[in-house]
């Protein structure tokens, strides 16, 4: 039988319009298999070269510029944070410190309930609010909230431009880094809150970001299970700021709107302090993370 007989027998019929095997198919299949095999071999070789190169680089420890390693030693700040009275004291405890030549201020809310708010009303309500910082960013093109956002169980925005997230469910703040977080759905089910920001620290390791400019930075951090807002007192790159957070023992951290973004806190003595610029007030969708008296 010639190849043009397409493997049909005298006992068979075939409707030509339904299907017809291409005469070149066996040849194409051979080429396809050969291409796949060559591709697999090339991939294995490249992988081996990368592993060999990586294993060589691991041993090349410089004298003057040592490769950074994950710091497992507890920073002294961690002992201070864990020792704070979380039972009777109400208000924000602050701490100034310098890490890697970066002056940082830590804000630790004690015995407060966290939530998100939209609009400027919360910033003026100093009767109950203890700590207020800007949360999600606003899009420059349409002034909508950047990334997914849930307010008291109501989803107001969707999107994944930033992989860091913060969920507030039943007064419990959870910070993390993920493409999809079940906390978004949980927040909608349990009248909770959710927003997205740039990730800074994930499981104790620095997360690199594309933002390379320097600015006053703020981060929402989890240190030894306690939620702490950390702000730089000088203009820093996101990388240096995140590294400082890692070095003080932050396990999870996401960015908060920095620069001169407005904020407010009340110390444990009841004295209030304004942060950033409070004017002008031009964004309808501005969002804040707020801790208030229970």
């Amino acid at each position, binding site marked *: 039988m010639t190849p*043009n*007989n397409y493997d049909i*027998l005298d006992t*068979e*019929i075939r409707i*030509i*319009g339904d299907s017809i095997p291409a005469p070149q198919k066996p040849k194409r299949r051979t080429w396809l298999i050969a291409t796949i095999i060559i591709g697999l071999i090339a991939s294995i070789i490249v992988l081996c070269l990368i592993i060999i190169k990586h294993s060589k680089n691991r041993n090349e420890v410089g004298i003057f510029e040592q490769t950074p390693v994950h710091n497992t030693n507890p920073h002294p700040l961690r002992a201070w944070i864990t020792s704070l009275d979380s039972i009777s004291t109400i208000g924000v405890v602050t701490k100034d410190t310098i890490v890697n030549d970066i002056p940082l201020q830590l804000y630790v809310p004690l015995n407060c309930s966290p939530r998100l708010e939209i609009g400027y009303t919360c910033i003026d309500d100093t009767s109950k609010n203890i700590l207020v910082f800007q949360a999600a960013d606003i899009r420059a093109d349409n002034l909508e909230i950047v990334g997914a956002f849930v307010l008291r169980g109501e989803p107001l925005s969707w999107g994944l431009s930033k992989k860091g997230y913060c969920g507030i469910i039943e007064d419990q703040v959870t910070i993390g880094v993920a493409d999809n977080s079940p906390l978004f759905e949980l927040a909608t089910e349990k009248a909770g809150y959710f927003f997205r920001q740039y990730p800074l620290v994930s499981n104790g390791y620095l997360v690199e970001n594309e933002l390379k400019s320097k600015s006053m930075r703020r981060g929402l951090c989890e240190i030894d299970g306690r939620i702490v807002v950390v702000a730089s007192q000088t203009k820093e790159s996101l990388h240096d700021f995140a590294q400082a957070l890692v070095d003080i023992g932050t396990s999870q951290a996401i960015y908060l709107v920095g620069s001169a973004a407005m904020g407010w806190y009340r110390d444990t003595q009841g004295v209030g302090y304004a942060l950033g610029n409070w004017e002008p007030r031009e964004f309808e969708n501005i969002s804040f993370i707020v801790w208030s008296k229970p």
Partner: protein
Amino acid sequence: MRTHLIISTANELLRVAASRIIYISSDGNYSNLLTSGGEIKMVTFQLGQIEEMIHKQLPEVASTFIRIGRSLIVNINHVYQINISRQQLILQDRDSIYTLSASKEALKALKEFIEKSI
């Protein structure tokens, strides 16, 4: 919609309306094409190559052509009678009748196909 089958060689081009093709039979490395009116045209292509041409050139009417075994392509619109016991396939074109031979299994399959298409 393309309605004509074009068979082209270095020196010749044959253009036949699909509806005028009664059947095409294999003759070794060549094929004989019988058109309406009884004209038989020999083309220098194997039957499988003709089958491929029909498939590519006439996608919308290709399903009216049935490949029967290794040596026959028939236009189903011209099928007049199938006699399995005599292994006869009779095609009709106006006043003319053409009797072809095929295997019982192939004719049985063709009969079932036409019955299903009713």
